[in-house]
Each structure stands twice: as structure tokens, then as C-alpha cells.
């Protein structure tokens, strides 16, 4: 009984300590941003890996999310004779919730894990120690470019995702189910607000999600135990921790930005 209680206490204290270490690591990253400016090329390379290489999956998923949303909404709205609202509801749902959240979950799975595995393997094969020997700050050279790349890539990917969703929704509603094209678009443009929905919904949310995913991924990779088991475990933890953080933060952000 007492050992169970102790274990529970340890779990609580352990996760608190982990959050604290993560916060301190964020401060180290922010402090190292000026000195990492000379590694700008490395940042561009990371942006290519986490951003441009994720485009395929983001675009495919965005297309299908838009299509299925449109299909479902059409059938529900046709009960009330309100199929003309399909366009605006698809756009609002995608901008406010689905776009940022699904993009973030995909980004955590596609880019977050690869960041963690890469840095973890660097740690396991002593490359990070070697950098320190050569007086290269590993935070500035390894952590900051990946963090910045995640921060920049997420909003861009989210915009692409939303655009594909709208296209998919239009494809199903207008081309297949026969909603009038003009009604679809005019209803959307009448109800979607550029500030409330696109800037607050898409941009702010995805910026925060990008920062959180990149921070968790870099932190997990950087602090992994230098074993193959440790790298595997860190990769798993990246996905779990970022997914929970995304969904929890989504509620908080929605409450604040509404």
C-alpha cells in the first residue's frame, strides 16, 4: 500500500519535474536563438524536412477531411432544407477546430517523431558530446533550428490543410451532391470572418501548436537515455505528450480567442 502511494507520488513529482525541465529547456532555446543565427542554413534545411516533406500527408488528409465533412453536413442539413449552409459550416469547422488540431496531430506524428529520433540518435552516438568538444553549442546548432522550423512550418501547413479541406468540401457538395456553386461560396463568405476565424483560429492556434510540438520533440530527443530502448521510448512519449498538449491547449485557446 505504502509502496503504491509512494509510486503514485513519484509519478506526480516525476511529471512535474519533467514539465519544469521542459520549461527550462525552452528558456535555453530562446536564449540560444541569437547565437544560432549563423546556422540559418541549418534552419532552412530543417524547414525542408519538417515542413515541405509533410506537405503530401497534410494535403491528402485535408482533402479527405473536407470531403467527409461536406458529405456528413449535406445529409444532416438536407433534413432541414438547409444545404446551402454546407459551405459556411465546412469553412467554420475547419478554420476554428479541425484545421489546426488535425494538422497538429499529423505534424506531431510525421515531424515530431523524426526530430526526436534524430536528436536521440545523435545523443546515443555521442555526436552531441562531440559538438561540445568542438565548442559548437549543440542547443544553438541542433535544438534551435528544429524548434524554429516547427514554429514556422505549422501555420503554413495548417493554411494548406484548410485550403485543401475547402476544396474537398466544394468538390463533394457542389460537384457531386449538387449544392449551387454560388450559394456555397456566398454563404461561406457571408459567415466567415477574416479576423475571428482565419487569424485567430488558424494562425494563432497553429503557431502555438507548432511551438509546443517542436519543443516537446526537441526536448524528448535531447534528454533521451542514450540507448536504443531510450530512443524508442522518447519517440513514443513525443507523440503521446504532444497529442495531449494539443487537445488540452486547443480548449484553452478556443476559450481565450472566442
Amino acid at each position, binding site marked *: 500500500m505504502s509502496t503504491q502511494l509512494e509510486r503514485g507520488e513519484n509519478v506526480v513529482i516525476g511529471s512535474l519535474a519533467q514539465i519544469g525541465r521542459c520549461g527550462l529547456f525552452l528558456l535555453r532555446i530562446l536564449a540560444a536563438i541569437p547565437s544560432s543565427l549563423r546556422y540559418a542554413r541549418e534552419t*532552412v534545411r530543417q524547414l525542408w524536412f519538417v515542413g515541405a516533406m509533410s506537405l503530401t500527408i497534410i494535403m491528402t488528409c485535408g482533402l479527405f477531411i473536407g470531403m467527409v465533412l461536406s458529405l456528413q453536413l449535406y445529409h444532416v442539413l438536407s433534413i432541414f432544407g438547409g444545404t446551402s449552409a454546407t459551405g459556411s459550416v465546412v469553412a467554420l469547422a475547419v478554420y476554428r477546430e479541425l484545421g489546426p488540431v488535425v494538422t497538429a496531430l499529423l505534424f506531431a506524428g510525421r515531424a515530431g517523431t523524426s526530430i526526436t529520433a534524430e536528436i536521440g540518435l545523435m545523443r546515443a552516438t555521442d555526436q552531441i558530446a562531440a559538438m561540445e568538444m568542438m565548442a559548437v553549442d549543440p542547443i544553438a546548432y541542433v535544438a534551435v533550428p528544429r524548434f524554429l522550423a516547427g514554429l*514556422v512550418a505549422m501555420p503554413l501547413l495548417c*493554411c494548406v490543410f484548410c485550403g485543401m479541406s475547402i476544396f474537398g468540401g466544394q468538390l463533394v457538395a457542389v460537384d457531386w451532391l449538387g449544392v449551387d456553386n454560388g450559394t456555397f461560396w456566398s454563404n461561406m463568405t457571408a*459567415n466567415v470572418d477574416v479576423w475571428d476565424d482565419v*487569424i485567430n483560429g488558424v494562425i494563432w492556434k497553429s503557431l502555438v501548436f507548432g511551438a509546443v510540438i517542436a519543443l516537446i520533440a526537441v526536448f524528448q530527443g535531447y534528454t533521451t537515455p542514450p540507448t536504443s530502448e531510450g530512443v524508442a521510448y522518447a519517440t513514443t512519449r513525443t507523440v503521446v505528450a504532444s497529442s495531449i498538449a494539443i487537445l488540452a491547449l486547443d480548449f484553452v485557446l478556443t476559450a481565450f480567442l472566442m
Partner: protein
Amino acid sequence: MSQRKSYAVGTGLFIVFGFAALAYLATQTTSVVNSHQGASYVIDAQFVNVGQLKERAPVKVAGVRVGQVQSISLEPGKDVADVKLSIDKKFGQIPTDSTAVIYTSGLLGDQYVGLQFGSAKNYLANGGHLVLTRSTQPLEEMLGKFFGAGGVADAIGGSYKVTAHFTNVGALSEGAPVKMAGVAIGSVADVKADPVKLDATVTLAIDSKYNQIPDDSAAAVFTSGLIGSQYVAIQPGGSPNSLKDGDQLVLTQSAMQLEDLIGKFLVNGSSSGNSNAGGNGSSNPPAGKH
């Protein structure tokens, strides 16, 4: 080196692509599309009730957008709403005696301001004022009109009163219209329970110009529509004598009650013996003139 360059080009393309997507979302799918408004001028109009009209709602002439609602505020010291309309300079020829009406697009749609042109030769300028306005029609009012009640005749030429006994008046209330052939000819002046006969005594005030109604006419309590309000219908008889003040209508038909109807419908097959009980639809037997 060339590999590095391809990274840079690819990343640049990715960033451009992302921003292009953002620009597309922001400009093509949002209300920004509707605010392509060049030079505009402002006119104001006062409404008694703006309903659900919002700022940036469209202003339309003949259904075509010519501007938008700039602001809605309460006229200081009065209970009227002051609405400022921002009209595109292109549409500069709005007659000064035009009417501003608040419309609803569809049954549940958003509201907008419609301008109906007058015939004046002068046009509204910046800061101009629309004198003629028509406010939003609350749905309840429209439904009320639609379901009867609204057609109460104005008894300008005086009225005469006749009474009728009903076993059940349903939800008939004072002021409900009295109709003949669907046209309102008077109103219900009074609904009372008779302490002796234990039924409802309804006093009908009928307009004096309808003084040729036969005295054996029947009165029935009808409902306009399924959920509408109730009214009294006079079905003319064939007697040569007409109704006079203080007469009684002996032939009456009480209000149908939905519950009774449904009950009848449900038990119809099993017991037909007491299907006439329940006081619905039973007309009093003719008992001659009172």
C-alpha cells in the same frame, strides 16, 4: 552544394505555397470578399425596431448589394435605433424619398436593409437622412396575422349583439373574430360560463351593416389552421327573418379538440358505442326561436 541549393529552393517554394494558401483563405473564403468597397458615403435612417440587424449587414437595392450597415446605435433620449448606412459612391442616385426596410433573407436567414426607391428628383448626399423607414416584422406578429385574429372587423357603424351557447368553446377568447364565409363581420364580445345550463355563453358583436343574417344560422367554433387561434364562424340558414340585437343562435357547434379527435381516431375500431360522448362536435338540437 547543389543539394543544399535544392533544399533552399524547395523550402522557399514551401513557404511561398503556405503564404499563398493563407492569402487565398483570407481573401476568397471570408467576408473580406464582400467589403471591396471603394469610396462610399453615409446616410442614416431611424427604425423603431432593428430586430437582429447587425453591423456590416448588406444594404440592397432590388436585391443587389450597394453597401453595408456601418453602425447601429440608440438615438439619445428616444426609443428608436439610429442606423448609419454606408453606400458605395457608384450608387449615388438614391432619391430622397426612398424607403428603408429591414428584410430577412429566408425564414431564418440574416437580416439586411432594403432600399425602395421613391420618385423624388433630388438624390441623397453624404450625411443624408432617410425619412421613410419600415422596421423588422417580428415572426410572432406575422404568424399571428397569418393564423387569423388579425381580421377583426372595425365596427364603425355600430354593432348588435347576439348570444350563442356552446358545450365547449375550446380556447376561444374575447376579441376573437366572427366570420361569415371567411370574412370578418364582428368580434367576440364576451365568453362566460352559464351557471344554470352549465355551458358557455358567448356574446357576439356583429357589425350593424350585416343585418340580413337569417335567424336560424348556425355558429361554430373553428380553428384557423392546425395550431392557429380560434374564431366563430356563422353559417347562414334559410329563414326569412333576420337576427336582431339580443337574439340567440340556437344551432351551435362546439370547438373540436385535438385530444378528443385523436382519442376517437385511436379507439374507433374497438368501441363505437360511446364515440359521441365527450361533448365535442355535438350540436344542440334546434329548439325554435328564443
